[in-house]
């Protein structure tokens, strides 16, 4: 059941106006409809928002007003985005993901707050009751957890929580108090900050952070593996481990069982994957430079002959060589660096693979076979990051403001999924590498998961997966546009009261268009007050025409799906999904 079919109209007038599109109500003058849209959208009506966005005549009429038009568009996009977000299948396992998604949408000065959804998170519950009354109780319960309702977090027996905040300790009388009342006025990021502090004092609160939960689970598994492997040690080796923290123990075990790789031993594989690199396994700068240079041709060889790979290679044939750099990336597996137009691979991900395989920095430098193997292993994320390069290139050519949004990730992950699923079918060595790595590497697990999900699900379902599981904390295009438009239109309205001279004077110290174009939607929305008027107007124009962006995403989606169909129906493919690993 989707959001629209689930919705029970509350107000008869609105129902007549927005749900009977094509009937007599719709035949009203555009100006009348616009007035009705404005009123309904201001009260948070998502159906009105969707209807307005589809009503070209009223939309164009609104757009004619430089100040009110973008503001209304921002609110409408925000409501549509919220409706779409909550229409996704949320269960209690995904409550923290939903929290991340809501945190970037429901906040002070966000467009949703202007239509009554926020900044206090509980206003979302009222909105749900009003506009989505038929949502099941389970989904509403997930929403209550996601917004960190006081009763969910602290229970119903107390209205007050005394707590330490790092060095502000309650026992010294300099801690702080949180009351149910103050909780009610906190936005989600503030509630999460409080919970993060409580996590340090009470393990029960770690259920509110998926990363911490996963790390805890990994740590328990690692401890079990370390304990098992200890039985194989000599007394001297055991003495070296004695009294050391788990990280040191894993590191020393890596040294004891070094060089021979894991060889099918799951405990050793887990230890090698989790531990720090031994000195000889670290890729220093000069070797990273060499490896990066070797990876370009090696990865290109991997990409050749695959649908997604051909697309990437065609792009680089036209737009310059595929340049790859290897360096630490703060937890990301790969990235596209727009400043240098280079794809960066995380040296730590490569070193993890080397540890499990028993490779050293020197052995990799000496062995074309090991370089080729690493290139094969990392090739999916080269495809993924190439998609970001293509997006950046498109935006430069179009000259439009290009926020980083979920749709970018859907496109990039689709291309990667297409590539990996084809490689899993056609390339036995690739399949074996991924199969043998999945047990210890979240990198390999994610690559295979993405391929499987892309191949097995339709485009809409895959998009939902990307939005929910992988990038819930990133705004959708609608959300980004709505937030920027809301802030920009407010600022332009404020400036319209200034004299031309005042505006010109302010613009001499404000941020330039180039500086604004490099900002994230969050930064832009927060900094609209210090951006030059012409830059604001340009960005407002860009984001008022989302069709330009959406048609690009849609074309990329069609291409990937078409290619997938070809792969599935090709003679070499016997199954619809990649082989089970």
């Amino acid at each position: 059941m989707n959001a629209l079919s689930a919705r029970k109209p509350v107000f008869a007038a609105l129902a007549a106006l927005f749900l009977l599109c094509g009937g007599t109500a719709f035949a009203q003058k555009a100006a009348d409809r616009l007035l009705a849209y404005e009123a309904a959208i201001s009260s948070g009506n998502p159906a009105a928002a969707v209807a307005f966005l589809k009503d070209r005549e009223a939309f164009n009429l609104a757009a004619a007003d430089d100040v009110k038009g973008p503001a209304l568009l921002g609110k409408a996009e925000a409501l549509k985005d919220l409706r779409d977000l909550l229409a996704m299948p949320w269960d209690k396992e995904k409550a923290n993901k939903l929290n991340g998604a809501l945190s970037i949408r429901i906040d002070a000065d966000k467009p949703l707050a202007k239509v009554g959804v926020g900044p206090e998170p509980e206003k979302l519950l009222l909105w749900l009751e009003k506009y989505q009354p038929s949502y099941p109780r389970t989904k509403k319960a997930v929403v209550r957890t996601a917004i960190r309702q006081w009763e969910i977090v602290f229970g119903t027996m107390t209205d007050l929580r005394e707590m330490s905040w790092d060095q502000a300790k309650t026992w010294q009388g300099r801690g702080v108090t949180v009351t149910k009342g103050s909780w009610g006025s906190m936005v989600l990021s503030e509630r999460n900050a409080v919970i993060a502090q409580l996590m340090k004092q009470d393990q029960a609160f770690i259920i509110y952070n998926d990363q911490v939960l996963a790390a805890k689970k990994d740590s328990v598994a690692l401890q079990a593996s370390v304990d098992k492997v200890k039985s194989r040690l000599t007394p001297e080796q055991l003495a070296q481990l004695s009294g050391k923290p788990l990280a040191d123990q894993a590191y020393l075990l890596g040294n004891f069982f070094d060089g021979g790789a894991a060889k099918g031993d799951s405990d050793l594989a887990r230890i090698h994957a989790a531990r720090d690199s031994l000195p000889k396994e670290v890729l220093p700068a000069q070797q990273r430079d060499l490896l990066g240079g070797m990876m370009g041709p090696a990865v290109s060889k991997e990409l050749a002959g695959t649908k997604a790979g051909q697309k990437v290679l065609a792009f680089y044939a036209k737009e310059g060589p595929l340049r790859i750099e290897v360096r630490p990336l703060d937890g990301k597996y790969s990235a596209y660096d727009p400043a240098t137009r280079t794809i960066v691979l995380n040296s730590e991900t490569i070193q993890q693979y080397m540890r499990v395989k028993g490779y050293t920095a020197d052995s990799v430098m000496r062995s074309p076979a090991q370089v080729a193997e690493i290139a094969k292993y990392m090739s999916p994320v080269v495809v993924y990051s190439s998609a970001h390069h293509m997006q950046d290139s498109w935006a430069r050519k179009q000259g439009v403001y290009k926020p980083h949004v979920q749709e970018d990730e859907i496109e990039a992950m689709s291309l990667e999924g297409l590539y990996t699923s084809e490689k899993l079918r056609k390339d036995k060595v690739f399949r074996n590498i991924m199969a043998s790595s999945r047990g210890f590497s979240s990198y390999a697990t994610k690559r295979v998961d993405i391929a499987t999900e892309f191949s097995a699900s339709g485009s809409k379902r895959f998009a939902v997966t990307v939005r929910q599981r992988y990038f819930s904390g990133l705004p959708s295009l609608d959300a980004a546009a709505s937030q920027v438009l809301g802030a920009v239109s407010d600022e332009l309205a404020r400036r319209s009261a200034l004299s031309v001279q005042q505006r010109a004077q302010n613009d001499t110290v404000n941020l330039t268009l180039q500086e604004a174009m490099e900002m994230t939607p969050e930064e832009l929305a927060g900094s609209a007050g210090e951006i030059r008027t012409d830059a604001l107007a340009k960005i407002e124009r860009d984001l008022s025409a989302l069709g330009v962006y959406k048609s690009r995403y849609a074309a990329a989606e069609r291409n990937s799906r078409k290619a997938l169909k070809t792969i599935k129906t090709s003679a070499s493919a016997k199954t619809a999904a990649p082989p089970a690993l």
Partner: protein
Amino acid sequence: MRRILLVTFAAVAALTMGLKAQDVSFDSLYKDLPQPVAAAPAAAPVAAAPQGQAAPAAEREWLVLVFINGVNDLGILGFANKSINDMEKIGSTDRVAVVVEYGIMGQDGSDARNLQFQRGSKTIYVTRDNDTGRITSLPFYASNDGDMGSAANLVRFVKRAARRYPARHTAVVIWNHGAGRLGIAYDDVTKNHMEIDQLGRALGQVRQFLGRKLDIFATDACLMQMAGVAYEFKDSAEVVVGSEEVIPGDSYPYDAFLGPLAANPGMNAEQLGALMVDAYAAYYSGDNITLSALRTSALPGFVGRLNNWVEAVRADPKAFKAAASRAAAVATQNFSMKDSKDLYDYLGNVNDMLAKSPGVKAAGADLRDYIEGALIIKDSASPSLPNAHGLAIYIPALRYNSANYEKLLFSRDSLWDDFLREAMQARLDPNL
């Protein structure tokens, strides 16, 4: 000692990062936390709507920019307010502009100490007042975003202030928790912080914007005066001021150096850097503190001499054994982050362990002389830290943190990372 990395980092990040982070024992840093001596109440900041924006004023001698991230325990404890009030004791003049970007969380001042969030950040042109309990300088800009852990936000702040208050000399200070090579400016609400390489790139943008180096880049945050950290700023600032050890809650005594600067705005970067060190040492005469100012133009020469020392050690097995030994590391002055050790002291200890090895001894002595005579403009340490000489360096006990250290320019340009890897390889020998 209060300006130390958060329990957030210790507990949450350690869990989330699993074994990828070195095990810095942050918890142990909290044991001796004193209460602030005269912390001002954490009054709610001035309500801030963007004010009418000033046109660029006539060029001053100095623009002092302080980026105060009090979105953490430091804000709650009143230290951020205290620092701004210290600046307001002096204020700006027609020759020196003091501009602050601040985000502060705190409590409402009631007996219950109800938690309060500021939301967003504010930029103030600091004006003089006699009220040490409230921030009275008016904001000329307020951002809803206000991520105080964002390097991009820092850059925007510098641009915002420098466009309005142009000056011949510019100093930038970051006020927050510091964790040396691991980063600075931890915002508890956004969960963001600045990695050192990020900060280096941000200051590179600042240099590009200004068309010249910053005159001073200072960290009013613990543990930041490390070779690998300072080197990241070598092309962005003339003078780097920071502390090898933790910085007490009261922070820099801003009035103690802004006052003399206002009286003598013609001082240059090195003079102001030295003044900051002296003022700090005078303010904290009884505490375990360090502060130093170093000359970034001397960093290439420093790296050259450090590389000479590494090459000499590599060529001398006995010297390498001594330099890589636990004994040399243990004997060296360390700070609250245990793998951060005083380089000058370490070189002396290695030399003391060597019977012969003239090449290594000469290289070590040369490097020590260069640190003392060319690199460090001024340094100060409490009598309780006699072996602190103004510059710390990363020397792990067992595991080399490649995910962090290999990101630094220092690892690319110096042989120190190579030495560390070789030393850590030697440490795997239980008999060493």
